């Protein structure tokens, strides 16, 4: 019996306030997303102080959400998401040069007799990905006429990786994509948004993926950037191939070292933990993520 790769994932978020927060409400998007390539063996979300109520639901995009409120005054709030996941490699390797020409992907949705495609919304601008004309100009260098879609998208990813500087602190989550493009630096969310914007500007479908990276690489491989916090990349959809993930921060096609948590149009749809706090004055955020490979549980329990 074949086995995937097992990871124990721990994602801790702490808010420390300078004053007392009286109440707060939160939406967490922290449970790894089950798919043919990810089996979730165990998950728990621990919150301190104890929430007054916690509700689980599935959002518009199919992601699992936890919604909770804290009704006791506090100065520090801590949410820890712990999971045991099993990640599987793709069934078939991707040959980027074998995909359809990008124009065909673009035009597929425009055909008059095309049935309704629910994924069409990943071609549109979204709150965090506004489509500035400069995006298409930048993207076009990777999209010469007739080039296979995946090959072109991989080339765009490579260019973002080589031409942009990974620079924590240089941007915030609200920095517009066009600004990231002009300044040539950012963090993983920015690069994901940038590439998504470039693809959508050409009429191509791309979605935002949030998740984690393996913390310590296998011997002989470099440590990936973004492994100590939650990570972000993107996914493009190609007819016959399906969704293909691309990680412009690491110039990699994610395989078994990435753990997917959720996807949506952009960061706003899948932010890991958002909340509204009453009182509390100033706050500082501390985030820690660890993704550790573990032995598969014994055959009996599996």
């Amino acid at each position: 019996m074949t086995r995937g790769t097992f990871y124990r994932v721990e994602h801790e978020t702490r808010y420390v306030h300078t004053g007392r927060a009286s109440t707060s409400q939160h939406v967490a998007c922290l449970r790894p997303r089950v798919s043919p390539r990810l089996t979730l063996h165990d998950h728990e979300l621990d919150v301190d102080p104890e929430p007054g109520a916690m509700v689980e639901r599935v959002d518009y995009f199919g992601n699992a959400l936890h919604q909770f409120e804290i009704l006791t005054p506090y100065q520090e709030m801590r949410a820890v998401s712990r999971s045991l996941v099993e990640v599987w490699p793709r069934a078939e390797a991707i040959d980027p040069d074998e995909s359809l020409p990008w124009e065909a992907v673009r035009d597929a949705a425009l055909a008059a007799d095309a049935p309704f495609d629910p994924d069409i919304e990943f071609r549109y601008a979204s709150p965090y990905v506004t489509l500035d004309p400069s995006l298409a100009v930048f993207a076009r260098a990777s999209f010469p006429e007739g080039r296979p879609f995946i090959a072109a998208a991989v080339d765009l990813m490579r260019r973002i990786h080589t031409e942009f500087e990974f620079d924590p602190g240089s941007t915030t989550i609200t920095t517009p994509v066009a600004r990231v493009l002009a300044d040539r630096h950012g963090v993983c969310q920015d690069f994901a948004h940038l590439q998504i914007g470039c693809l959508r500007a050409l009429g191509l479908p791309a979605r935002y993926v949030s998740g984690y990276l393996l913390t310590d690489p296998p011997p002989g491989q470099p440590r990936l950037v973004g492994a100590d916090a939650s990570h972000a990349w993107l996914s493009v959809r190609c007819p016959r191939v399906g969704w293909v993930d691309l990680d412009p921060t690491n110039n990699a096609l994610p395989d078994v070292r990435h753990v997917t948590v959720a996807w949506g149009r952009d960061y706003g749809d899948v932010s890991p933990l958002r909340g509204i706090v009453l009182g509390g004055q100033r706050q500082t955020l501390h985030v820690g993520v660890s993704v550790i490979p573990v032995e598969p549980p014994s055959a009996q329990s599996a």
Partner: protein
Amino acid sequence: MPRTPTDNRVSALLRDYAVPKGHFDELLDDGRVLRPAWDLFARHAGSLTAEALDRVQARVDRQIHENGVTFNVYAAADGLARPWTLDVIPFLVSAPEWQVIEGDLRQRARLLNAVASDLYGRRDLLTERLLPPALILQHSGFLRACDGIRPPGGVYLHLVAFDLTRRADGRWAVAETRAQSPSGAGYAIENRTTIARLFPEAFRALKVQPVGGFLQGLRRALLEDAPTSGGDAPHVVLLTPGPYNETYFEHAYLAKQLGFPLVEGGDLTVRRDRVFIKTVSGLRPVHALLRRLDDDYCDPLELRADSTLGVPGLVQAWRAGHVLVANAFGTSLLQSRALADHLPRVCERLLGEPLASVSLGADERPQLSHAPVWSRGAVESRGVILRVFLATDGDGGYQVLPGGLARISSGGNDRESVSSQRGGGSKDTWVLANPNGEGGSRSEGRPARRYAVAADEGTTSSRTAEHLYWLGRYAERSENCARLLRAMLSRLTDNDALPRRLRTVVLGTCRTHGLLLDKEARHEGGASIEHTSAVLERALVEGMLDGKKHHSLAFNVAQTVRVAAAARERLSSDNWRLLNRLHQQLADSGGGPIGLDEALEIVDQTIIALVAVGGLEMAHMSRDHGWRFLSIGRHLERMSYVSATFEDVAESSLRSEPALLEWLLDLSDSLVGYRLRFMHHPEWPHVVDLLLLDSQNPRSQAFQLAKLAKHVRLLPGMQPTDVAELLRDIDRLLAVVASGDRTQGELFSRHAVLDNIIGQGQQIATGLSDALTLRYFSHVYDLPRATV
């Protein structure tokens, strides 16, 4: 030319009336003959002369102003003040025409409700390609957070409005849809009360359909649809963005008409998926809210994170089915003009019937029909847009407000100039009854169910309580300020009334109350009496009207009106009109230099208006917690004033001077009372008695203390420990006052006793204000902040 008995009069008025080519004429037909409804109106409208109409229009303008329809005290700061004008000539719609409009729009409202149900549910309209996907999925009003939520009863639209324009061929078309929180129904009803009384005979002759039942129907639907649990009486509130909003008047008006408390986002809180209002008695459940806040501002947790106007968790409470939100979140999507283009096929699919109403094309510029408007002595023609309102009838259909808000362009023919934000005006819309008695509001026939609506006693929100408390304080402070000014200004010209040697004391009091600057008050020096009187007079008169100067009369009155506006749904319209008129009067006087005589006149008028305001509070407000906070504010302020002015005199060696004592009695409106009782010149022991100790004098400190003790004991949820110390102090003080032998002047020879009484009073005032703030008010202004 019109061929009717009204010929001569009417044609004289219509000399300049002309409708541009290509626009439908509401008034005259192709042969320039009055259309039947207008003809009937002209016959019964009474004296239709230019002079009469000018007079009536002036009255309407004044009335609207006094009702405060335009009044937005915050508007001056951000430049949003636009006069809301109301034309005296009503807009007439004949019965057959209305029947068509009514039927068409009822269907359209049902259709839009079905569209919302589909788009936030199965989305057949997309999968069956009846709507282009980009139209919905790319629209910022398509709220993914609302996906799959089915509101109580499947009703997405409780109140919906359509802006209609009449095309050249006479057919009405829908230009705009107001689906999420339509405004204007309150204005439409308010307009009716103003205009109908101007033409009572015409109003009867035309059998104009009444508009009053519409809000009752909406009220009933909200009460019936509100999800309550355990036999609770349904509690419905009206959610407003607050007094800064340009249609705040309407929010307050509707809240009063519907009998729902007016609340802001900060007044509500969500706990365990249920909505509560923060009242002075603690949290009280809310089962439905009629919102005047846009979709995306309603919940910073799930919608716009930067909104401070909303209620965190509201979407989740709605999702859980514990609260009705009217209209449903996500309905702004239905306002898309592009959507209207696709409605014919959508209607066939969802309702199985053809769409009756016509939509204006997404890019079509409407040619507005023209109606007569009274404009500076002549009838002119102006473009008209008619906003028609529908409310759910509780049976899956809609009732139509038989009337509406007719808005007229300010001059041009385009739609832009019609918006009330751009200075256009409005008209009262008269819908004529069908001669055979059909039509009219359907809601009339339904039996009215009685609801034990949650009594107001428990639902004074913390915010309203705080505003009422400050209303009490500022109204009292304004009156005190005016009395001090009158006492000064009226004595400046008369050396007998205020001998020079007393001025140091008097000017000190003016200084502590902020009426004079330090240097002005010390300006005595060696100058002649005439000279210093002139200087003082100028300083006092100029200062009192300077609204930027804190403690000035204009400032205090402006503050009074500001807090009154924020608590306006709790005040009677008479109360509001008095305050509004007063504020306007002071603002008008602030323009140029005025003389002593005029200043005294203004001060007198101010006192009369404020006394009337105080009288209305006593005569007309029900004795709920809100009133109690208002009264506490008044008594606290009065006590501070009495003891502060008293102290100035008590500390002076001149305190036995009759002129000084008369002045002191005058400050507290107690001069007449003194004379009635003592029949001679004021003497110090009697003044002490009257102003400090006499529990029968409504201006005395003892009186304020007794009232405060009584009100504070009746406050809701007040733990004895909160104010126990304060109440003990009050009782102790009152006991000292009662036990002293006042007639023998025992108390008055001993300074320490007097100092103690005054000092303790002042401490109690401060302590009580702090205790109330801590216990009832402060948490309201704790702003929510987002973390992402």
